[in-house]
């Protein structure tokens, strides 16, 4: 193994559920820079069913683009010799796709419901809920478990010290089903037990032989208390370390890499957390993929990660539509499209998830769905990013069956930097498209900087930071994070066209700009990537920039490839139906988001 300081040529891949992305990082003089990138469809589908085929294709593309020979047949040349080979190969993977879980609990309205909340909270798609009183025949439950081929089963039931028989009976059904994991027939299905602690020994006896049994704290230790966090965390761990690891070909891939393969979201989380710590700022990061959308946040030093396993733009695209409804998607499409047409297009993307939009209208449709996927994922994140991490939440009996509002960690006014990643954001043909999608979905308030992962390499850098953190940081700041610019937005709403905001911009080079912006506008002011300006914003009496209604805000703002965007469309953003298309086009034109729009 080469010493980290001697790494000159680094090969890194991220094997996503849709595409496998390979990058080359080279040491040029004293600095590390990302130099080439290749990508290829991920090959987990028939007939290949081997993630390494896609990886090899992406290496071949890198070879073609860089002129550097990386492969000797199907073997990576390592370490580098002159113009051949690489010093290290690292990889992340999320090729397992989304997480599908079945949950089982003794009583449907009690432990099964708590289990469902835990699974949903962990980002799973709950394919079915099984309970002792679900009116199904045991053999129907058994058949269901076999048919669904879930990635994981969460079993709960019984308060601590309470009944063991119901949960043991459910365990017997699971054992009787002898369930097979969705990925790989030779692997045991992970079953997480989070029920009555007194039943653990019996559960072990029943399930340990036939399943990959994991045990965690009871998620319903008493009728009045719900303790979901340990189960949530364990589900996410199992998803990352067990389910994904069984994607076809993964075993072979593991023999190629110089360091353990890191799950994609974990790697992205490392990069975001490091960046927040290094600069002492609050960050929200999002990585929207084909099957899942991950949201990361760091507020006041608290790091939270959520996986929305059912929100994505290929495998899960139809689920985005099902969850948000056609109307919510159509409101972002700047031309007339019928619901039936949208539905057929979305379903066709679902059944052929690796296709890409060729027409402008199709791109706009996918970006409309992306807005909704991002919005929903952020909603789920905010619901989970709460202060009582790992602490047993005690509910009184009257609120046993309803969610209790907890103080959230996410505060949009405190948000310094919003980073977007994933194909639809990183590969948007024009950067303003990414900025518009992020603003529309996350609705930043006050002053917020925005950036995108240039070519989707945060995962690669996250895993690289485990062996060469300095190189990862250098490439992140120089080549990965593309500053889009800054967004100034009001925090409340008003009447369309009424006087809203006066701004003054004093650029460092002496230029000055003044403008008066009515409510309902999106305006762009030039401010380049390395430029700064003093911003003075005076809201009208009824408008708020986070300092109170009518209170001015002064700040130094930094630019980006798009510039300074002032958003007076209000929070929440309600797009009038009568002139929706006209407004969408006007806003897109203000940012130069699309040609001929």
């Amino acid at each position, binding site marked *: 193994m080469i010493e980290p300081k001697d790494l000159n040529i680094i090969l890194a891949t991220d094997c996503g*559920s849709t595409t496998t992305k390979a990058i080359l990082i080279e040491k040029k003089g004293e600095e590390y820079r990302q130099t080439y990138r290749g990508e290829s469809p991920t090959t987990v589908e028939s007939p290949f069913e081997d993630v390494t085929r896609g990886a090899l294709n992406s290496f071949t593309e890198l070879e073609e683009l860089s002129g550097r020979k990386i492969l000797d047949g199907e073997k990576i040349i390592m370490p580098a010799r002159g113009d051949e080979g690489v010093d290290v190969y690292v990889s992340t993977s999320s090729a397992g796709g989304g997480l599908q879980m079945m949950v089982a609990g003794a009583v449907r309205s009690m432990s099964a419901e708590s289990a469902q909340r835990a699974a949903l909270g962990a980002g799973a*798609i709950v394919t079915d809920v099984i309970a002792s*009183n679900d009116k199904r*025949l045991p053999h129907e439950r058994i058949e269901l478990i076999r048919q669904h081929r879930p990635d994981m089963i969460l079993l709960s039931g019984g308060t601590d010290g309470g009944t063991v028989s*119901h949960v043991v009976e459910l365990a017997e059904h699971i054992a009787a089903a002898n369930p097979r994991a969705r990925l790989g027939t030779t692997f045991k299905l992970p079953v997480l037990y989070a029920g009555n602690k007194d039943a653990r020994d019996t559960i072990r006896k029943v399930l340990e032989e036939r399943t990959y049994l994991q045990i965690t704290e009871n998620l319903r230790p008493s009728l009045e208390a719900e303790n979901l966090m340990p189960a949530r965390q364990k589900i996410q761990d199992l998803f990352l370390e067990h389910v994904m690891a069984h994607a076809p070909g993964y075993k072979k891939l593991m023999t190629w890499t110089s360091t353990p393969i890191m799950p994609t979201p974990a790697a992205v989380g490392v990069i975001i957390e490091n960046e927040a710590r290094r600069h002492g700022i609050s960050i929200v990061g999002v990585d929207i993929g084909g099957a899942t959308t991950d949201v990361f946040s760091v507020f006041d030093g608290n790091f939270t990660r959520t996986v929305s396993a*059912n929100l994505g733009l290929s495998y899960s695209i139809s689920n985005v539509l099902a969850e948000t409804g056609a109307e919510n998607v159509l409101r972002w499409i700047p031309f007339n499209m019928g619901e039936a047409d949208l539905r057929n297009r979305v379903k066709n993307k679902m059944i052929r998830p690796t296709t890409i939009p*060729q027409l402008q209208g199709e791109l706009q449709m996918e970006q409309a769905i992306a807005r909704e996927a991002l919005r929903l994922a952020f909603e789920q994140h905010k619901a989970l990013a709460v202060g009582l991490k790992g602490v047993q939440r005690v509910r009184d009996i009257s609120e046993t069956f309803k969610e209790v509002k907890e103080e959230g960690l996410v505060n949009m006014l405190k948000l310094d930097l919003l980073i977007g990643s994933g194909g639809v954001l990183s590969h948007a043909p024009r950067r303003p498209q990414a900025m518009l999608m992020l603003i529309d979905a996350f609705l930043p308030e006050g002053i917020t900087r925005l950036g995108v992962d240039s070519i989707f390499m945060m995962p690669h850098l996250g895993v690289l930071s485990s062996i060469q953190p300095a190189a990862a940081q250098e490439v992140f700041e120089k080549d990965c994070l593309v500053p889009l610019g800054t967004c100034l937005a009001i925090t409340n709403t008003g009447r369309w066209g009424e006087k809203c905001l006066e701004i003054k911009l004093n650029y460092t080079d002496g230029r000055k700009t003044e403008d008066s912006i009515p409510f309902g506008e999106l305006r762009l002011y030039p401010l380049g990537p390395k430029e700064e300006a003093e911003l003075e914003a005076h809201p009208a009496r009824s408008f708020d920039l986070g300092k109170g209604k009518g209170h001015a805000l002064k700040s130094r703002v930094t630019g980006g490839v798009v510039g300074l965007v002032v958003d007076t469309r209000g929070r929440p953003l309600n797009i009038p139906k009568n002139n929706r298309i006209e407004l969408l086009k006007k806003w897109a034109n203000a940012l130069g988001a699309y040609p001929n729009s």
Partner: protein
Amino acid sequence: MTHAYTPGLRVAEKTTIRKSRVLPLPGEVVVKKGDRVEAESVVARTELPGKVFSVNVAGRLSIPPGEVVKYMLKREGDPVEKDEILAESKSLFAWLKASCSSPIKGTVETISSITGQVLLREPPQPIEVRAYIGGGVVEVMEKEGVVVETTATFINGIFGVGGEVVGPLELGVSSPEEVLEPKGIRQEHAGKILVAGSLVTWEAMDKARNMGVLGIVTGGVYDEDLRSLLGYDLGVAVTGSEKTGLTLILTEGFSRINMAKKTFELLQARRGRKASINGATQIRAGVVRPEIIIPLTEGGGAALETEGPLVETGMAVGAMVRVIREPYFGKIGKVKSLPAELQTIETEAKVRVVEITLADNSTVVIPRANVEMIQL
């Protein structure tokens, strides 16, 4: 040159198919290795534990859970008849006596002194697993099931709903372009699997299932019609357990799309034969696509795999491809060239493309990701 590994769906005129047929619980395998079986033949059976009912004895008798055992007239393992008294409270006054009877015929499974609940279990239920495809038993997994092998025409669909059904194949249309409408469904189609062309309408599906048609294989369907069939909006493509009364398999996609000529002609050629179809689909890693299996009873000999090796070697000039996304969705063409350089498409994205010649001799440029390989 980089290979373009474009997944294609399997369409084989004659190939060897092996199917595992496994019991949900260990039981008895009723056939032997070497036996010939029909699709409907039972190959294994078992008895599954009966349905469990709970009776809140403590609540009914108004006694603490810990005292339930004392009041029980039955013990764990005892058989009970429906309405037979399970437990009775004791009192000096007859009118103060309370009792608790069994809602089912079965056995007493457990008596819980923690919850005060008594669990009763109905008698075991026999379950049978059928062969699903006609063929030979080539492997017996003791107490679990068998593997059945047959030589068959095999066609993968792109998407389906509903589980396994077996029935004679019948054409509902005369061409791959034709739409299957209600008037195309007749009484004699009951118990059969119908082949549609470019589309099957909701009205046709509804009529078909009411008439007893087992399944429909179609080029396309409108999503809103699928929603009508399912009764809900499908979010994730994990299907197979729907109780729609009709197994539906799409060979091309959503909307009106002509069924691929080869697929239609194969189905046409197999008209009248018994087909085994399953709509079960999982479109994610570890993908499962729906299947149409038509065992070939004559011909014999070694199975001939007629699928082209194209998908194994990547896309090449001259290969036949189908466009699977707008603007040329459903069109078939021949690969003219595979430019190595990225090209800018209408969206302004720079992507790898393929140049293809369509049937009308026009040449179009398509992102490589938007074509799939086919055989004609």
